[in-house]
């Protein structure tokens, strides 16, 4: 039987690295895509993915409410993206040991797709940069990754009311800047990772 996030986290809190590995497998893609959508580079997103989980392990004594492991990881990712330099500095030695991807030739099509992704994401981020950072964070979590207000509040450690008001302001401002911006919310909701199993 597969353990749920809460059970795994209880083990992680006791120092069970295997349980932590299972959480990594389960949520690596969500955090990887979140990092990418916040910075617009796949390679950097991969580095930051490792930093997020190293940081999560460092904070393994944290008691989390049931079903809030992934929102909490999104919160760590948000901080890591926000303070990239500091976060990378803290884990500099570990990052030096980060294994290089195995040298398997990537299909040209896939490499092109990734470059297209990066161009597209940078265009989106340039528009998003018109918002205050705090509103960007709420927007990314709720609109792009389908987090509930409650989960976003856990991730960002702010009250639910603040999540609601920041998201509302962000949406209004984006509609003002680019009326077509709202389309992507529905477009991507179906691809959003499940918040909790």
């Amino acid at each position, binding site marked *: 039987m597969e353990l749920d996030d809460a059970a795994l986290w209880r083990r992680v809190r006791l120092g069970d690295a295997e349980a932590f590995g299972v959480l990594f497998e389960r949520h690596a893609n969500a955090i990887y895509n979140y990092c990418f959508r916040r910075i617009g580079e796949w390679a950097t997103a991969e580095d930051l993915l490792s930093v997020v989980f190293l940081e999560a392990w*460092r904070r*393994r004594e944290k008691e989390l409410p049931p079903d809030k492991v992934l929102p909490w990881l999104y919160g760590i990712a948000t901080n890591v993206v926000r303070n990239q330099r500091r976060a990378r500095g803290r884990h500099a030695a*570990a990052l030096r040991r*980060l294994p290089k991807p*195995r040298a398997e030739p990537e299909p040209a099509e896939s490499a092109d797709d990734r470059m297209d992704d990066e161009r597209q994401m940078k265009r989106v981020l340039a528009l998003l940069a018109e918002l205050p950072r705090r509103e960007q964070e709420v927007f990314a979590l709720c609109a*792009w990754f389908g987090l509930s207000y409650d989960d976003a509040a856990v991730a960002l450690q702010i009250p639910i009311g603040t999540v609601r008001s920041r998201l509302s302001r962000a949406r209004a401002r984006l509609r003002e800047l680019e009326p077509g911006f709202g389309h992507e919310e529905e477009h991507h909701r179906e691809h959003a990772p499940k918040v909790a199993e």
Partner: protein
Amino acid sequence: MTPKYAPPPMRELPLDRRDQLRRYLLVETAHEPALTCPRGRFTRRTALVAAAIGLAVAVAALALRGGADTASAAEVRAKLADGLTIDETMSGEFSVRTRDPGPPPPGTRRCRDCIPQPPLPSRFVLHPDGSYSSLTLPLDAPNRRDVAYDAATGVETRFGALGELRGRPIYLRTVNLDPALLPHRPEAHLGAWVQGALAAGDPQVEDVTIGGRAAWKLTRTFRPGEHFYDAYGARLDVVVDRETGLVLEVVQYAFDTERWTSIASVRDLRIGEPTSRGAFTVPRPSGAVVVAHDYGFRRVPVGAAEATIGYRPLLPTKTFGRPLSDFAVAESSRFPFPGVPVRRNAASARYGRGASVVTVSTYRGPVGDLPEIGGGRTFDLTRGPLAGTLAYVTTTPLGPAGVAAFADGLLVHVTAPSAEEAIAIAESLRAG
């Protein structure tokens, strides 16, 4: 079509990369303390004391490390783990020298494997897909122990010390191999064995150059009886290649930390050189007679194993981060050599790649078929379906540690880089 201001669709991290990062994290987490200082209680005085201690530690570390670039033991250990999962073609020459340690000093327990049986010098090639070859040097030496495996065809070939048929030496060609059958590849097992030896404590690290390659030299001393079953003697010096993490040299000291008793070395290491598939087949000497053998193992999904073997295979829930890499079952499996018992209703699983592998194997047979009886030391398993069962643990230089047990007519074998891991894995077995 993607709208102009929509983020691109999500992408999955490639599975092998995710696996690689997971393994990396597991290594890193082993050395990362939890953040325990509660916020708000960090007083100015505490900060000053911490800063003073930090400064003292830094000064002491600089004095001990002998160079700004010298790695910590944790870094070397992580690199070792890297080296065990072969990512590029590697080739080199392997040899072992030994000398008699003499009788143990009074009051010192004789270590179990102080003097390894030295294998013949060999040239090895390792491929990331699991193919390998190890050919005795010199290549025209009459006394040979050649072995090669081509992962693309699943065929293993051997020559040397296999006896004769009709007065001609035997050249063995085997298929459908047991995933738990790890061939004798000393150059690869070196890394696994060393990892086990260093698991219990941090060695002293210094920078060295060996065979023109930048390396780290790790020195670890052991108190008699300190480590699991005294497999390592009094002291080990291990030289690890900085670029690949491959173990280049292991110097073992049986009783006296100043007198070496065995030196295992890898020389002429080459990385990433193109290799033809022919390198993974032992050349058949003229005059040798080819003997074909089928071990009888068939690759099936774990869930389908019961139909062949009549029971749900026992598989570990703990593999220290290694994913399942091979699983096969056999209604009946024979070795191509006389005198080895037939294994019935066998299930074998391998976890991990390269030399950093764990294997679990179960089959039906009498308890007397356990080869470890008489050779290993005994202990009681305390957890899992085998709890309360008497088990045997063996540690051998140049090979992985093993645990064997017998319960309800089933023989269980577990191998891992260290005895501690093998025991933990044996205690985590569950019916799959």
